[in-house]
């Protein structure tokens, strides 16, 4: 049915555009990442691939159509890392993965056109604090949306060794649980926009007393906000020095089938990528961040002036050609708005807006209805 009573939009006065950032809190509990859907080695929400280059974490058994992809885990090292060597398991794939992340996120050095190396500080390019062996957590677009909100990312990791019980079987790794966060980053400071994939912030250890890290500017990983990728240095699991005392982490990885234990360097060199990812997953106690959705909106101001839109073509508006809302001619005409249609120049309905309750329109009032379309 064609509508005839159109009102032309004045693009100078009836149209404006806005940009709004929406944030959602994304809490990921460690139980989802390991433990809820099966026992170690047969977890139904963890998808491993035949190529063995990464594993995917879902929030539900991944064969179900209800499952949502949360993030991928993989690891790798630079060719100059001490872990690199022909005897290392999946050596080429680990190098390739490191290079893939580095070239996409950081790009190449201008002078020699070689792939950059991750650094755990904001002074990129000084070649200090390089992270040559890393874990990579790539969060799904479904959760990250447009980007991770700066200063909101936190990951809680268990950094202790596996505890061996009385019968000689390793159980859950002992504490302490340590929080690593980018809390020092914000929209106005604490980030670096080096590279090809947007800005990154540095992950520091949360000391729990309002301080972060060890007092230096060096962290243990970085978060690429727009890419939604977290890079964690393997050095997190080298052990921890507190008060002059070093607590080595001798048993980072436990091979679930036979209780085999090894340190993080052993996991990087002697374990497959998926096995090493298993090791990390079982140390993740919690992940949380806020995502960001950028809403670009066009607002159309649809005006109903006092002298217009006071009558209706609705068939119920008249009975025997006489308006049902009037008794005598001098009664004020009235109509009720429930719908706003937005049309193109060919009278085709492009968008439609519905009011939750009718709005009364008569010659004594003017209405301006803001219709916002988000993109």
């Amino acid at each position, binding site marked *: *049915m*064609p*509508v*005839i*009573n*159109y009102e*032309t*939009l004045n693009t100078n006065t009836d149209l404006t555009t806005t940009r709004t950032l929406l944030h959602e809190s994304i809490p990921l509990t460690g139980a989802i990442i390991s433990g809820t859907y099966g026992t170690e080695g047969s977890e139904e929400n963890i998808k491993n691939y035949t190529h063995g280059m990464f594993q995917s974490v879902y929030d539900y058994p991944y064969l179900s159509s209800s499952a949502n992809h949360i993030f991928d885990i993989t690891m790798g090292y630079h060719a100059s890392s001490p872990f690199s060597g022909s005897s290392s398991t999946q050596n080429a794939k680990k190098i390739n993965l490191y290079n893939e992340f580095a070239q996409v996120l950081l790009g190449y050095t201008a002078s020699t056109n070689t792939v950059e190396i991750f650094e755990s500080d904001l002074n990129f390019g000084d070649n200090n604090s390089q992270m040559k062996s890393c874990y990579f957590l790539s969060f799904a677009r479904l959760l990250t949306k447009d980007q991770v909100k700066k200063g909101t990312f936190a990951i809680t990791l268990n950094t202790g060794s596996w505890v061996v019980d009385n019968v000689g079987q390793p159980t859950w790794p002992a504490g302490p649980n340590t929080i690593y966060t980018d809390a020092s980053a914000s929209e106005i400071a604490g980030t670096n926009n080096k590279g090809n994939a947007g800005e990154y912030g540095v992950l520091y250890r949360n000391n729990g007393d309002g301080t972060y890290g060890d007092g230096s500017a060096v962290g243990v990983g970085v978060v690429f906000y727009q890419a939604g990728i977290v890079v964690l240095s393997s050095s997190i699991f080298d052990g921890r020095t507190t008060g002059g005392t070093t607590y080595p982490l001798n048993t980072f990885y436990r091979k679930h089938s036979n209780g085999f234990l090894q340190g993080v360097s052993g996991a990087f060199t002697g374990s497959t990528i998926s096995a090493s990812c298993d090791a990390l997953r079982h140390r993740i106690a919690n992940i949380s961040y806020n995502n960001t959705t950028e809403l670009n909106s066009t607002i*159309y101001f*649809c005006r*109903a002036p006092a*002298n*217009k*839109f*006071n*009558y*209706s*073509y*609705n068939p*119920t508006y*008249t*009975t*025997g*050609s*006489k*308006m*049902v*809302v009037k008794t005598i*001619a001098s009664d004020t*005409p009235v*109509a*009720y*708005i*429930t*719908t*706003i*249609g*937005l*049309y*193109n*120049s*060919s*009278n*085709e*309905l*492009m*968008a*439609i*807006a*519905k*009011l*939750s*309750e*009718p709005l*009364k*329109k008569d*010659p004594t009032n003017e209405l301006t209805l803001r*219709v*916002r*379309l988000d993109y």
Partner: protein
Amino acid sequence: MAFLDNSGDIILDAVLTDLGRQKMAAGTFKIAKYAFGDDEIDYGLYNKNHPSGAAYYDLEILQTPSFEAFVYSGAGINYGLASFTNTNLLYLPSLKQNEKIKTAVLMTNSLYYLGVNQETVTALQSGLGNKQKVLENNNTAGYAIVVESGLDTTDLVGDASNRSSYIVANNLLDSTYSVFFDNRFLANVLSPTAQSVFKNTSTGADATNLILSTTTATSRATGMDNYSVSSARGVNDLVYYVTNGTGVATSVSAIAGPRGSATAASFKVVTGLDASTTGTTDAKYTRYGKTGQDLGFSDGYTYDYIDTTVLIVGATTNATYMATVRITRRAS
């Protein structure tokens, strides 16, 4: 679609239509105009006699729940709000079909039969038992759908004075009509020429003379898929209250009160639909209609037909008349 929550603040729920998304994908999305609608409202709920006073007249209307927005572009605003500068209008014209004048086609079971060729017309006239029940394809001398615009009320006498004061002076005269038709089936609209007259005699006799000619569709956008629009002349409806003799104006006019204008429409079908029984059945009959049907005339013939909707809309008042036309071909 569910209802919108109307328990608190007023919410405006806006969505792109399917067509809007299509245009956006094609890079041609641009909004140029807007309109207001009130399709959910039943103005019959407006209670001017509410015992609690004027503040309660529209209590029921204001509680009308609204649906969430439909994304189907064809389900947007069906009628819409109107703008008339005169706030003292009490009557609005409506369109009514006229089956009283000698050239008006008669409706059969809520639809109009349109015979696509002479053998079909002959068969339909015989089967329906009345020649006046059949529109003839592209025949300017045949019957036509006749529609009048006016104030269909017995409150006002349908004389020249009231026509002038209630219709013409209030700019409610439809001097032209828009005829929307499906261009997959109909090629042209036949509508009245400037020589047409629509009046009665002083004694109340039918003095109408609607002369049809072929019009071509305008380039105006219709906002409806596969629809074109032709402009049809609005002939001044000068059927007046009869003061001389025993005749009544309503023996000629379908409108009870003052009349504004009238128009007529017949059609030419697109080439191919008019094939005779020895010709090939157009595939459109199979796809959009029915083929080989016994229409219950007990004439031994079978028919192919397509039902299509034609809208006749007053260009000034936006009053609308919707007709279903059955494009009919004798198949055997």
